[in-house]
């Protein structure tokens, strides 16, 4: 974990509400795909957690959706501006799970962390099959980026305006995979939990106070005891998840 200033080198919209920001700085403490950074923003008390989407040497990519004050402020920033980040937060995905064929399931802004994950899985020689879910055609992003990496990509839209109609779990019984990794809104995670037949890893979100394990703001119960989403998470194994109510 480290607190460092990053400099924005690019900040551009991918869709009406989703932006891609590239930053340069000390990325030394970022060790795994699925980790996140916690961003300090002017005039806001708490930092905002955003997943690591990509990493190239000193260059960090974040993909974020404008949903409120903090993300709106980020969308208005330009290259050259500095951002104060806590880096290297969270456990990240486990790349050592044995598999030849890996399934990634992402929904909306749950997709970004799967990008670095896909790169690293491909580098291990695994076959990576990606299912990306959106509400509508105009929300789609990163379809081509995943293809360019060499993944098999299927896009789903809830209203059928592009790709296959429905959810990323549609027709999952016909898919062949040894392990899966997923990130997205909780209803999607629950559906993935029900529809998958192998082991896999889920990345969760929770409102955070600190993001580095100090406040107990993000605790959840698991089969193996309580865990802090910011520290022992955000990635949990399927087998340890306890859904509340």
């Amino acid at each position, binding site marked *: *974990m480290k*607190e460092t200033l990053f400099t924005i080198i690019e900040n551009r919209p991918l869709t009406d509400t989703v932006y891609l920001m590239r930053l340069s700085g000390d990325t030394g403490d970022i060790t795994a795909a699925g980790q996140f950074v916690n961003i*300090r923003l002017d005039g*806001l*008390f*708490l*930092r905002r957690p955003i997943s690591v989407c990509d990493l190239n040497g000193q260059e960090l990519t974040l993909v974020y959706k404008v949903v409120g004050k903090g993300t709106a402020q980020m969308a208005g920033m330009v290259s050259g501006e500095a951002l104060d980040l*806590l880096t290297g937060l969270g456990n990240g995905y486990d790349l050592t799970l044995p598999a030849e064929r890996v399934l990634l399931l992402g929904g909306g802004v749950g997709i970004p962390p799967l990008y670095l994950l896909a790169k690293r899985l491909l580098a291990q020689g695994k076959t990576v099959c990606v299912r990306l879910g959106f509400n509508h055609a105009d929300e789609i992003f990163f379809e081509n980026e995943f293809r360019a990496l060499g993944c098999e990509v299927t896009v789903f839209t809830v209203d059928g305006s592009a790709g296959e109609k429905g959810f990323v779990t549609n027709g999952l019984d016909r898919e062949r995979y040894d392990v899966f990794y997923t990130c997205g809104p909780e209803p999607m995670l629950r559906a993935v939990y029900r529809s998958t037949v192998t082991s896999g890893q889920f990345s969760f979100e*929770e*409102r*955070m*106070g*600190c993001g*580095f*394990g*100090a*406040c*107990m*703001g*993000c*605790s*959840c*119960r698991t089969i193996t005891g*309580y865990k802090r989403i910011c*520290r022992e998470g955000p990635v949990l194994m399927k087998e340890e998840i306890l859904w*509340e109510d």
Partner: protein
Amino acid sequence: MGRLSVNLCGIELDNPVIPASGTFGYGYEFAEWYDINVLGTFSFKGTTLEPRFGNPTPRIAECTAGMINAVGLQNPGVKAVIEHELPEMAKVFRKPVMANVSGFSLDEYRETCRLLDAQPQVGWLEVNVSCPNVHGGGMAFGTDPDAVRRVTEAVKSVATKPVLLKLSPNVTDIVSIAKAAVDGGADGISLINTLLGMRIDLKTRRPVIANKMGGFSGSAVFPVALRMVYQVAHAVSVPVVGMGGVSSPENVIEMMLAGATAVQIGAANLVDPMACKRIIDGLPETMDRYGIATLNEIIGGVC
């Protein structure tokens, strides 16, 4: 004594800066950010007799210049704290530490304090009678002078270490509560705990916090906290530990001028893990700027 050192109930602190309970875990999370031995001491997470998971999430809400928390005293219980957390803590912190205790009955306060008092690492007991998060819990004790006196007496009957009573600001007359604690034998007072607060999400029209309400703290509460520290410090003769919204060396000096012997820092640690170190590092220069030779001489400097 150094320029920054103060004496809190008979124990010398290298400086008056103390991370507040619930915002510093058991210290070792922060030891990954800096050598926490630079601190005066720290107050570890509120401990109860039995383990507690705490409240459902969301437990955190953002506010203007502050935050609301409704963690609900999540902690592994006093036995696990003594068996696991204190030994881990000893690896990263070699000074006496402040043990923060919560309870739901006089017996529970007494027993938890008795067990923690016996730990050589523990320098002070800080008895929280104010946590607003727990149904039927701390609130009842902290808002009634009589109950505060009884809790203090119960704890004092088993304690060999100095006992600080940590007060809730959610009362009409903070001075009467502080006096009740002193009547019960308190060796010091620490205040303020969080102010009861609430936020509503406009999209869902539901409270942001699952528990509906929670404790408000952070920079926004500083003037309220300072006022209460001032009132209490002028009404009692025991040392006062001031806290609430402190985030800079200037805030520390202001709290001490109001009457605080030492100063705790809470929410600021969550936003900036290095906050306490930065404040300590900034103190000498800030003192120079205001012509302060030693911190000890300014305690209660404003009448």
